């Protein structure tokens, strides 16, 4: 059984990763998970400066899901390198650093700081966070802007470069193609959906900026549709995420065309979910008589 994926010479030994924002900087889960069963950890988004994040409340539960409005709270790239990378270097999982920002300068500044740092296996560029209050859904809705960011980062690194796509767009495949054209090695598909909960007592939205990002099983069909669409347009690998709470959900992503998947908010209720999904995918593949990702994709043709 070989479900590995190589991006720009970096071999990810299996198809399961933990999604940015849901796994902190990995150390938080040290006593609860077996890192040898998790192929990749996508870190919490890193910005040039530390960010306190949004006011409380930052979470609200929804039917089979949740909204978050964390606001990219993170320690900033300097403290990330100094305080978080040491532990990240000790785990067998591949480390993909999620990079967030609001201008070209932000992204480039973070990449430049991270380039000399050992133990980083790739970058996932967050162009799609719906929670940063700079007046829009982020530059992830504009293929021209995504192309520009991808190009600028591509020029600064030889490491695997993954662009994380927003589902809050009219044509997600266009965004994916723009990223591919400028040298992205893969796209991850999808970030959270924009959602809102209104409190019947206060008559106002629960979250401070009104909307938040929707995660959970409720979005699985949206994510699978996006993976299906994008994987038929680009030649680079698609990393599927969104709504995975059981191995069967991950298999849907793979059959839709994903070559790897990420487990996100599902980890909150079940910290062992990533390794359970990894086991479930493998057992399923064996039952289907397939042993590589190419053969899994063949099943769907």
């Amino acid at each position, binding site marked *: 059984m070989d479900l590995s994926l190589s991006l720009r010479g970096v071999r990810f030994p299996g198809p399961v990763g933990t999604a940015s924002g849901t796994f902190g900087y990995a150390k*938080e889960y040290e006593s609860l998970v077996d890192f040898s069963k998790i192929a990749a950890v996508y870190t919490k988004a890193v910005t040039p400066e530390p960010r306190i994040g949004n006011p409380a409340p930052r979470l609200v539960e929804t039917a089979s899901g949740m909204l978050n409005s964390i606001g990219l709270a993170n320690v900033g790239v300097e403290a990330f390198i100094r305080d978080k990378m040491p532990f990240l270097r000790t785990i067998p999982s591949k480390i993909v650093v999620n990079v967030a920002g609001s201008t070209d300068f932000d992204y480039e500044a973070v990449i430049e700081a991270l380039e000399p740092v050992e133990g980083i296996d790739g970058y996932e560029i967050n162009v799609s966070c719906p929670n940063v209050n700079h007046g829009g859904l982020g530059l992830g809705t504009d293929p021209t802007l995504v192309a520009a960011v991808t190009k600028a980062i591509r020029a600064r690194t030889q490491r695997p470069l993954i662009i994380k796509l927003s589902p809050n767009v009219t044509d997600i495949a266009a965004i994916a193609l723009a990223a591919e054209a400028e040298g992205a090695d893969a796209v991850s598909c999808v970030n959270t959906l924009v959602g809102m909960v209104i409190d019947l007592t206060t008559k106002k939205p629960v979250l401070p900026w009104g909307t938040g990002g929707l995660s959970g099983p409720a979005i699985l069909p949206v994510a699978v549709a996006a993976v299906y669409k994008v994987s038929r347009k680009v030649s680079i690998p698609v990393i599927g995420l969104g709504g995975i709470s059981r191995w069967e959900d991950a298999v849907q992503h793979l059959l839709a065309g994903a070559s790897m998947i990420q487990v996100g908010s599902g980890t909150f209720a079940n910290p062992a979910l990533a390794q359970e999904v990894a086991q479930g995918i493998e057992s399923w593949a064996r039952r289907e008589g397939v042993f590589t990702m190419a053969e899994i994709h063949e099943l769907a043709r």
Partner: protein
Amino acid sequence: MKQFVSEVLENRELIENYFEISFFWPADCRIPLPGQIVTINVTSSSSPYLRRPFALSSFHRDTRTAKILYQVRGPATQILSRKRRGDTLDCLGPRGFAFTVEKDRRPFVVGGGFGVGPLVYAAQYLVEKGHRPLLVLGFASKNLCPRLELLPSVTTQICTADGTQGFHGTPVHYLESLKEQKQREGFVWTFDTRTKMKETHLWAQKMGLPCQVCWDEVLACTVGACQGCTVASTNGGTMLRTCTEGPVFRSERLVWT
């Protein structure tokens, strides 16, 4: 902190809305200190989606029987109230900073509502450690006050808003009715709604007493990874994680709205 699946031993209704669930606490998992939380995933289905924080109301060392006295407040506690002997309980804990004792002062353990269970646990803990806590619990009315099994050595004052049992008024009204000298001798542990805890915090501030609150906020990961359960601190607007820097905080550290 461990994740474990336990088995429900008993789940009984004390009074309308208050239940007490008993379950086995594994030998290789530390016994929670007062104020620490254990988060429970009440269902294997996707709704409710998130774990919920609880704190123990009692722990019996010989049998390692843990109890949680909880209030039914929403869909998750509804599901919890329907669990029967033999059903599973998916637990993650203990977690967070516990209440701490202030030297040379008398403990006032104050609150009500969903705070009752953890405050009973706290008061019993203090007695076991040789202190003389005053447990002050507030309810709207006599028929909303569950019968509590407390060690006789815990001095308890029930307060009701309508005066149908115990002191007529809130716990803070009761505390204010004590001799000023007695008030100033104390330190406070409190757990209740935010409005009530703010009232307690302001009284403690006025009397110059150290005050610790147990903060209740929606949480997701339990382990400090997601930054979702935060509360604003007075230190330059820094956000503190309820599950990691809390759930117990010195009351003056928080921004009260």
